[in-house]
């Protein structure tokens, strides 16, 4: 049996929440461990490390991914967004507010991944109804809430979006 002593490393340059990180990391390291161990960003969590629970959900170039199923090396030269951003978009901020307002989190361990998945839904499926929200959010496990309040919170933000709440903010952000 070969002795796993020296794992090859690679130098990465990654934009995370608008800040550039340059790090040498083992090629075998997944994105979540890279964010947590090498960048000090503890906001995305590991629940299963095999791509099922969704607690590690982050965005790469605007696309949600499982941080535990993406190698850090694959993120080289790409743009990462996590829930820790200092400049949340109006939609992310509204989701954070709604999660608190509806008590859509209890222990909060799934919440960062849940919020990133919900943000993707709000942006990509503005017409989603309650059933569609339940289906979409099924990629993220929550063991505390029973999901009802999470669905309520996401639906509330979708309602507000349909009511035009983010129109002005969007224009401001674009301007």
């Amino acid at each position, binding site marked *: 049996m070969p002795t796993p002593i020296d794992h090859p490393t690679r130098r990465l340059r990654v934009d995370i929440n608008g800040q550039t990180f340059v790090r040498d990391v083992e090629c075998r390291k997944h994105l979540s461990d890279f964010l947590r161990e090498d960048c000090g960003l503890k906001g995305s969590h590991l629940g299963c490390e095999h791509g099922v629970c969704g607690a590690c959900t982050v965005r790469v170039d605007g696309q949600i991914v499982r941080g535990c199923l993406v190698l850090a090396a694959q993120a080289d030269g790409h743009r990462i967004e996590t829930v820790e951003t200092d400049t949340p978009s109006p939609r992310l901020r509204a989701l954070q507010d709604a999660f608190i307002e509806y008590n859509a989190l209890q222990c909060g361990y799934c919440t960062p991944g849940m919020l990133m998945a919900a943000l993707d839904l709000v942006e990509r499926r503005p017409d989603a109804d309650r059933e569609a929200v339940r289906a979409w959010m099924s990629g993220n496990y*929550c063991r505390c809430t029973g999901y009802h309040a999470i669905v309520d919170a996401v639906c509330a933000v979708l309602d507000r979006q349909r009511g035009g709440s983010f129109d002005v903010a969007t224009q401001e952000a674009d301007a």
Partner: protein
Amino acid sequence: MNHPLEKPSHRDLGADLPAVTEDQRHIGVAIPREGTRRLTEGRGQFIDDIELPRMVHVAFWRSPVAHMRIQHIDRTAAQQLPGVVAVVTGPEIATICKPWVATLAHLAGIKSAPQYPLAIDRATWQGEPVVAVVAESRARAEDALALLEVQWEELPAVLNTEMALEAGTPLIHPELGDNLCFQRQLDTGGVDEAFARDDAVVFEETYVFGRHTGVTLEPRCQIADWNAGDQKLTVHHSFQAPHMMQDLYCRQFGLQEQQVRVLCRDVGGSFGIKVHAYPDDFATVALAMLLKRPVKFVADRIESFSSDIHAREHRIHAKIAASRAGEILAFEIDDLTGIGPFSMFPRTSGIEGNQVVNLTGGPYKHKAYRARLKVVFQNKTPTCQYRGVGHPIACAVTEALVDGVAAKLGLDPIAFRQQNVIPDDAYPATGASGIKLEVLSHEACLREARRLCDYDALRAEQAALRQRGVYRGIGVAALIELTNPSAAFYGVGGARIASQDGATLRLEPSGALTVMSSVGEQGQGAEAIFAQIAADAVGVDIARVRVVTGDTDATPYGGGTWASRGAGIGGEAVLQAGKVLRANILATAAAILQRDVQGLRVLRGAVVDLQTGAPLLDLAELGRIAYFRSDTLPKSFTPELMVTRHYAQRDYPFIFTNGVQVSHVEVDVDTGFVKLLKHWAVEDCGRVINPMLVDEQMRGAIVQGIGGALFEECLYDTDGTLRNGNMADYLVPMAAEMPDIVIGHVQSPTRSSELGAKGAGEAGTAGAPGAVMNAINDALAPFGARVASQPITPEKILRALGRI
């Protein structure tokens, strides 16, 4: 808040009961938990988020088989791997950590064998830790695990509970003489007579409950740090009961309380999984002491599935007798349960079965009851108390029997229950098993559940749809739930598990309020409701209240989170401390203002004139004078602006709650799939502190109950290997499968405390499996088919229907 949203429609319940404080503005109100904002911003601090100087990481080599004798451990190659700090075996750990045997004196005859942090000569379940590898990173420790060479002899495994006590079955602990951990028999007398009555209608069935586990999304984890200079141990632990672990570390390692600090900050789900003392907890502490540096252990998911406690695995033969007039006459159960190779430390693994015996038939007024319980050892992961603890089993058995006999009598399930529950005006009462019931509201809850779900309309719809080949079912479950335990639960049995809790309230110089409670936070909202209670008890706005929990160095001593006791016990301590602090504030104000204390009151952050309401002294000014200008106060007067009060419930062994759940399902009789259409729950947890948080406790608990009823099972191969120890194969409920859940409230406050709150964290789990199983059987009724084995999988439904 940048974007205030419309407030969710939680009805404030505070006005439904007489107030317990002078100016009650927070208790009973659905106040959002602003304290969770940091969690939405990725700024929580879970154990794996903490990094300490010189910290190393441990990974455990765990037994790959159900039962084995350890023959030889060759650690040479593992030790030589760069980055590896130590490779440590069981006998080395045992030199500094004593073994334990988990029994309780009031569970007569319960026995277990000495258990060590790491297996010494035999490993008795797949997943038992055997060797610890410590390295500079978890990844490097896992690299070294692959270089460890362990030789073992596989031993015969005891898996099947039915075979565990048969002659010829190998003994897991030969010194115990058999594989029996605990047994109990209860007989009120009159049972045979009831079943033999001429007018008796009898229904009997055998119920099976699969093993499942808690699957906290954050796995079990801790960081142990031994400071040799101070001779002090600090343990950061994802846990529910910090003082209990402090006590256990003291006892197992020969330390005293002042040497051990346990910190429990953000805990990523607990549900009872994180209230037990695991072998790897002690091993991690031992490694920190041996290595004199911080050691972090974070279970990965496969370790969680094979080493977190499991629960359930009961087979219960049960029967009920009712008279033709519709009166329940008797229940009888025979329960066999397997608990793994050891009784779990320190709560024991006899409690779940014991609860099934105590609780079966609990809502009803029959007098005749007989129960037999056998708890056996087996070579599977140890089981112990997980959310609901025996209630989901007792409730499902009871309610399935009640539905079964009601159907034989041709009676409506709700009407039959209304006829047989202990009436609301009959309390205090004693149940057939001997349980003392202080004040319950079965009749009111049944009425409210019927109204809430529009029962008659559901029945009409069901009948119409059956004509079209659509099979819907309506399942009802009435339940009782044990909360606010006295020392009768553990203390009388010799376990050093506190049933009392304490709260310290301190008025800060600015007029802010700091609350320190021995009950901590794992997401339920304990800190939030303590802030609500403290704000009202003292008379300040909730925005001025901060709550500190989860630190044995900082908080009063207490039991922590278990048995749905946080609100009822911890909350009462906060209320009492708050009332005394309020009086002390008034005494201080009287001294400052040179006025009679009788003419003053604390109102919304200030001392005001009792008659006119005119503001006299802001609490910030009072704090300034009390803390910084004691020279201006009368010499005989010392302000006491920090108050501690403790509370233990001593009126009853437990304060029971009750509730009714209704499940509405549709069964596809071609595929066996169950669609959960909706779920209703009416609960009575006494005084509700925060209706939104109670609703969310109910919803989350109901979904965990549904998980056990329909999806979750730890599946073992015939050789004792866990087959589905990962999240893809072990099914936990997902958003799409779960129904909307409507919650209703009835409030019958307990008189054992001034606050009147009972627990709300587990009743959802208690009732859901019974309600869902009854709903499925109701849907299958036209086919004469029944299911009685949980999880109720599509395969089991198709077999019941004779389709496969």
